Each structure stands twice: as C-alpha cells, then as structure tokens.
C-alpha cells in the first residue's frame, strides 16, 4: 500500500447578485419612542446571517450602537418586497436597501435633533453610542432616545426611512452574448493538499490554504462561518455528493443520510484563510458577498491535487474512490508528479 500526497490550486471569481440585475430589494427602518430601531424586511435568513449583517449596516448608517437595532425578517405583511435569498444577493442588494432606508431615517433623526439643540442639522454628528452632538462641541449633545421622544410627541415626525436597491435589468445580445451580468465580483484562490491511497483510490483531505477577496468583511466572524462551511461543502461536492451515483443512469439514488455522502466531523482538515478586502464601488460599505463563491475553488483544487499526487486526471464529479482507482489502473499505477 502506498499513500501519495499532492497539492493543487484553483482561482476563481464570482458575480454578485442576480445575473443581469432586475432583482430589487426593499427595506423599511423606523424608530420607536425610545430611540430603538426596527428594520422590516421580507428577506430570508437561512443561516447565512442576513439579520446580523443588515443590523450592522443599519447601525453604522444611523450612527447608533448595534444593540439599538433589531432586524425583523420574512413577513410578507410587514416586510416590503425582496426578490429572495439567492445568487449572493443578500449582503449586496438587501444591504444596500437597508443602507438607503437607514440614511433616510438618519436624516429625519438629525433634523429632529437639530430642532431640539437649536442648530443646523449639518453641524451635527452621531457618536455611535446613542448620542448626537454638535461637531467639535460634544457637550452640546442629545441622546437618540430624547430625539425620538421629541420627534414622536413634540415635533410630530416619524424617524423612519424607506430604501430600495435595484440594479436595472439588462438585456442579452443573442448573437454575441453581450450583456451586463453583474456589477461586482468576488475572488478567491485555494490550495488543497490531499493524500491518495493507490490501492483503493481513497482520497483524504490534508489541508487547505486560501485567500478570498470579498469587498469588505462586514462581520469577520460571519465571513469565517461562510468560508469554513463553504469550503467543507466544496470538499463534499468534490469527493462525495450526488443524488445520482450512476448518472446519467437514474439508479441507486440515496434515500437517507447514510447513502447520501457528505464528509463527517472525522473527515475535515485544517483550513487557513486570508481575507482580502477590495471594496466594491456599489456595495454596502464596499461589501460583495462570500456565501456562494466560497465552495467553488475547492472542487478543481482537489482534482488538481489528486493529479499532483498520483498522476491521474478525474474530470467527472464527484471524484469517488472508484474513479480514482480505475484511472490509476488504466495508467498502470500511480505516477506521482513533482512535489510542490
């Protein structure tokens, strides 16, 4: 028995938002009389962290602490229209809508504060801790709570804002394919190291090193969740998963989690990640969206690492031990490539 190690790389980019645009999202932001804000969305959080990231966007834009913002999602009566959570559009599209709504609400808040402090709104700034004060004169200050009370009960103003974000739908030239698919792209490069058993074709992951460029990491912990989980899914797609193991023949489809193969907690490997931030001109605080693209580089990097380890190219996904073993036998044994 011999086990061979190999390394492979892949680099990719990924379009952010629904292809060709035409996918609006809306947001509403309003304050209660205590100066606490609610963001109303119909958008869906399916684990990617929509609620949390839009909450930070709203707080930053309003200039209030994140604790003062609560994001309510997924209600068609209270939340305005959103196209949905797919195509890496959450952070970019919904984030922009929330930013626009928060900006409008902030405008009213600053006007109301200006009226209370008897200054021009343009001379005011927020301290991010729940206070609004005159630029250069922190003692001339009012809390957002007092502003909210004044706006509500004295001035008769609603501290609220509406936001929509829409990349207009663009057309496609049927002949040349000329089109405007996306306004910004995320990028990644990943190095995978594998170990291949040349008698059984089994492939074990040894480690991964990666660099992901995703505009701005609005919340590094959430980014880490996406990248770690997404790379796991990439390994899973590369080596394990399919509901049609004998595709295109539709037989022996898995019926449960024993037959549907996904790497278990004993199959994972160390993954060292670097995050690069080249802000997107039209992203909320420059953000793009890490959710989808994170799995993509893993698949080819693993395939290329297998070639480096034993000299066989498997161009069919998933790369099962059977495919590796058949290829090794076809070439008359493992042919390790120069180690790199």
């Amino acid at each position: 028995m011999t086990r061979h190690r190999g390394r492979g790389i892949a680099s990719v980019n990924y379009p952010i938002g629904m292809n060709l645009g035409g996918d609006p999202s809306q947001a509403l932001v309003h304050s209660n009389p205590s100066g606490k804000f609610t963001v109303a969305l119909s958008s869906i959080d399916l684990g990617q962290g929509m609620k949390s990231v839009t909450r930070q966007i709203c707080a930053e834009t309003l200039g209030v602490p994140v604790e003062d913002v609560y994001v309510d999602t997924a209600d068609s009566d209270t939340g305005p229209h959103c196209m949905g959570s797919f195509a890496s559009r959450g952070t970019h599209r919904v984030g922009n809508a929330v930013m626009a709504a928060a900006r409008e609400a902030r405008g009213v808040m600053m006007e109301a504060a200006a009226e209370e402090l008897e200054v021009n709104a343009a001379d005011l700034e927020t301290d991010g801790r729940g206070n609004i004060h005159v630029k250069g004169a922190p003692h001339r200050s009012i809390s957002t709570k007092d502003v909210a009370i004044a706006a509500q009960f004295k001035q008769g103003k609603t501290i609220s804002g509406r936001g929509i974000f829409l990349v207009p739908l663009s057309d496609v030239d049927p002949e040349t394919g000329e089109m405007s698919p996306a306004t910004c792209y995320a990028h990644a490069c990943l190095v995978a190291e594998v170990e291949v058993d040349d008698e059984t074709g089994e492939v074990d992951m040894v480690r991964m090193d990666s660099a992901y460029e995703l505009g701005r990491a609005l919340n590094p912990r959430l980014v880490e969740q996406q990248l770690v989980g997404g790379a796991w899914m990439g390994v899973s797609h590369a080596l394990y998963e399919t509901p049609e193991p004998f595709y295109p023949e539709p037989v022996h489809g898995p019926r449960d989690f024993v037959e549907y193969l996904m790497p278990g907690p004993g199959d994972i490997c160390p993954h060292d990640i670097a995050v690069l931030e080249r802000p997107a001109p039209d992203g909320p605080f420059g953000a793009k969206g890490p959710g989808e693209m994170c799995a993509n580089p893993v698949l080819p990097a693993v395939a290329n690492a297998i070639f480096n380890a034993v000299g066989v190219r498997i161009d069919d996904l998933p790369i099962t031990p059977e495919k590796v073993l058949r290829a090794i036998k076809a070439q008359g044994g493992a042919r390790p490539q120069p180690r790199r």
Partner: protein
Amino acid sequence: MPVTVKTFTSSHDAAAALSSDRSARYLGGGTLVMRALNEGDISISTIVRASDHAMTRIDASGSRITLGAGVTFARILAERDLAFLHGPARSIGGPAVRNMGTVGGNLFAPVPYGDFTVAMLALDAMVSVQGGLGGREIPIDEFLQSRDRQTGTLVLAISFAKPGSTDAFRYRKIARIKPKGGAVITLAAHLPLNGGRIVGARVALGSMAPTPIRARAAERALEGRALDTSTISAAAAAAVEGTSPGDNALASAWYRREIVGVHLKRLLSGQE
C-alpha cells in the same frame, strides 16, 4: 388501519402474536420498524414488544457468550468481557443509534446496514428463535439465507464461542464517511491458532452479497497455515471468489470486488 401496539411480558406470547399476524413487526431498538412507519410503510399495522428480561441479558462469563436479542450496542461497549466486539459495536451508527439499536435487529438490517452481523457470522454464531411452532437454534449463515422469510419469527438471543485470543478476531468496516458512515464493505475474520497454524478459519464479508456471506475460498487459503505474507496474499486473492456484490449509492459492485482483497490483506496483516 391504525397501528396497534401489543406488549407482552413473555417472549413466548410475543412470538405467538408475531407469527399469527402478517402485518405485525417486532419492535427492538426502533431503528428499522419506527423508520418504516415514519416513511409510510402501511404494511405494518401491529407492533409487538416483549418486556422479557432474558432478551436483554448478556452472559459473557464463560467460554460461550450469549447476547439477548435486545442487547444494545452501547451495552456491548460497556462490557469489558466483550472487548473483542467493541470494534464492531462502535462501527454501528452514532452514539444515539448505539443506545437504541440491538443485536437482534441488526440481523435483519439490509445493506448498507447490518455490520455487527458480519462479526457474528465470522464467529459462527447460533441464532436462537421462537417461532409459532416453538423454539430452536439456527446457525447464523442458515438464518441469513432465509432472512426474508423470518419476519414472523422472534429472535431471542445469539450465542457464540469466545475467541481464544484477542488477536484471533479481527474486524474492519470500510466507510466513506468518518467516524460514522455506511459500509462500502465490512470484513470480519476469526483465525484461531493451534500450534502456529490456523484451524477453523472464518472470514465474513458484508455488502459483498445481499446478506453477509462467508468468504469460503479465503478461508480455505488460510486453513492449516501460518498467518504469513504468502498465506495473506493467497487469502486476499481468493477474497472475491463466490461473492455477488451489488451496486448501491455507496459504491459499485466493480469497486467492491476490486478492494475486498486489498482490505482483507490489510486486515490480516494488521495494516492501517
């Protein structure tokens, strides 16, 4: 028709209820019967249970070991006298399934399940059953060959001789997923040594046929010989003989045939 649950204190009564009703299934750990009900198997309309303590007894004090059919894998793992079976027991499910799944139920578990039974087959176990016509002991390979017709019989216990040494019994489950995964193939070998020679070699394979089977050609290659490199090679080369693996979601028949010898070689030579 709604499901009726019948609970008996004696296994005898449970067996009678089971054999008299085609729609009745015996509920062991629930991993097969409850799953079937959850998935809409309407052929089951009676669940039979027995609270007979004999069915959950472990007798591991002597040279012959008896495991009640209702003994769970977790209990085997807690039993120091059964250390040689900890490998097979740990290869079943995750912790929750091991707290529920039973030795008796495993006899009925179809591919890709039923790994513990492979170990039992290598130990030449006897299956003690209670049918409508009374109790009897059936050799496990015979039981497995007629498994499809055994749903009306109640398995009470399984018994086997304790291997003479810890090294004499070996087991390995080849799974894609770690640490818990369905078997690509499962191998168990019992190689009693007498004066440095193997006497009474047993090699059992899971997922190499519709039910666990003996690798008789490999056994012949081992019988009467010392466990050296050439014997191991001969046994590994013969491993595939007489098998009839199928394709399933975990692997193809081709792959199973290709690797069974490799893994038997590794099992016998103690390689990782």
